[in-house]
């Protein structure tokens, strides 16, 4: 089944509550997928700082002293904030690629969850409640975010198999459904230079969008492309640095409900994910149409 949520704030006064609102939304859908959960939160991009979210199976070993070693390797200031198995490394935007390369030699066991100016990604095996507690998501502030609770159907129950999947700067995607042509699409994307970390179908969808956007499409056009190029069932919710998009396949059998008020746009696999949002009783609530791209930007 899987459960997905998304929240895009229009009202700045809600930004301090983004993490807690998104956490409650995700926890309400725990029974749609109890094996792993993840959340991507977009803080405000300052333009002079980039963030890289890392995950390590042995955080005590890998994160200790990493800031100093990385700063030396890339000749730039580096700070690190550790949260359980994850850490967010901050450096200057022009040093992200260099940092990625340096991390491969400095800490070969580390996985990069995502990178960009705004996004931080936390995902692990376990129920949403446990994941939210582990990374103190409720305390996080931000402008928009997406979340996922997984019932694995396409690949192993591992940290890397959890959603969101991020395959480009500040881009990430959560998915409810299953793709039937992901192996073919993956082969084509690999031929075009994309790399993959899992056998997961959702990673292919994320990489597809990143690939199309890297070739000049905007997010709306890239999402349109999924309707003809990806086969199977899907509801995708995607985040970009300043945007939030939704698309369902033409059959649209995976559930989806959206709500919009002057304060926010919200997405949930089910209505119960939206019931605690402020003003929900008077919100415009609707089901996104099949084969239709919805998109908001700040």
């Amino acid at each position, binding site marked *: 089944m899987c459960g997905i949520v998304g929240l895009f704030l229009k009202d700045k006064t809600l930004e301090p509550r983004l993490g807690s609102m998104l956490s409650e939304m995700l926890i309400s859908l725990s029974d749609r997928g109890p094996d792993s959960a993840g959340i991507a939160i977009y803080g405000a991009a300052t333009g002079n700082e980039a963030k890289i979210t890392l995950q390590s199976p042995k955080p005590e070993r890998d994160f200790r002293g990493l800031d100093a070693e990385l700063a030396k390797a890339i000749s730039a200031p580096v700070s690190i904030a550790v949260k359980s198995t994850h850490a967010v490394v901050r450096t200057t935007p022009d040093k992200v690629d260099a940092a990625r390369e340096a991390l491969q030699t400095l800490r070969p066991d580390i996985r990069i969850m995502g990178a960009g100016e705004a996004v931080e990604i936390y995902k692990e095996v376990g129920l949403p409640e446990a994941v939210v507690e582990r990374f103190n998501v409720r305390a996080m502030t931000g402008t928009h975010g997406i979340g996922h609770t997984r019932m694995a159907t396409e690949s192993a129950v591992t940290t890397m198999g959890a959603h969101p999947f991020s395959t480009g700067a500040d881009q990430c995607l959560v998915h409810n459904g299953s793709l039937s042509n992901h192996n073919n699409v993956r082969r084509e994307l690999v031929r075009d230079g994309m790399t993959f970390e899992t056998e997961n179908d959702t990673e292919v969808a994320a990489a597809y969008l990143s690939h199309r956007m890297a070739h000049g499409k905007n997010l709306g056009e890239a999402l349109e492309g999924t309707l003809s190029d990806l086969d199977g069932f899907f509801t995708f919710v995607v985040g970009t640095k300043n945007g939030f998009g939704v698309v369902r396949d033409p059959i*649209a*059998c995976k*559930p989806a*409900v959206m709500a919009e008020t002057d304060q926010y746009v919200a997405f949930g696999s*089910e*209505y*119960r*994910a*939206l*019931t605690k949002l402020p003003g929900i009783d008077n919100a415009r*609530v*609707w*089901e996104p*149409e*099949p084969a239709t791209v919805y998109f908001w930007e700040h």
Partner: protein
Amino acid sequence: MPATTVSKALRDQSHARVFDLGEMSLRELNQALHKLTSGSNETAWEVLNPKGSHSVAVGVDQPISIDVRGSVGYYCGGMNDGGAITVHGSAGPGVGENMMSGSIVIKGDASQYAGATGRGGLLVIEGNASSRCGISMKGIDIVVHGNIGHMSAFMAQSGNLVVLGDAGDALGDSIYEARLFVRGKIGSLGADCIAKEMRPEHIELLQGLLDRAGVTGVKPSEFKRYGSARTLYNFNIDNADAY
């Protein structure tokens, strides 16, 4: 309404057994409903704070009324056999799935496959219904005040689907014998579904359905009827592409 009826309605209201799902579990509610036997005096029920809960009032088999104050999740009123359920909000997927008899009224919108496989009773959706409304319906009557989504009445076998608004793509795909009455536009008709003549008996049938669903100011003559062309009843190799 005569004064005596009003006072009786008010009295019934005051005697309604109230279940607050903010304080009690869904299982407690459904167990209490299932315990009712014929002749019970507890004929009026009210459910508060459903907040999108699944399976609210599933399996009711007594002629009781249930008012649900708020929106429900999956399968509300599933298998209903005689209950009069009103949801004062919207309903999630599968509302009234496999209903046998009685009625379900949704004041708001309904999600996917409303009334699926229903064998009897009346399902009224005062807002819009989503995709696959009435899929595989087997005798239920469904009246939708607004629009319905794609693939509605797929493989419908018996019963009536009335839509005051528009229908999405592939309406009545592979339909058997149900009657579809649509007042607005049709996205497209599915395999073996065709427009049919509105004969006097259909006008009469439709007027009865509109009356039962509380629809006023709308004439049966504003609707078109759709149903099965019956070319796919028996397998014929020449029709293989149509399935």
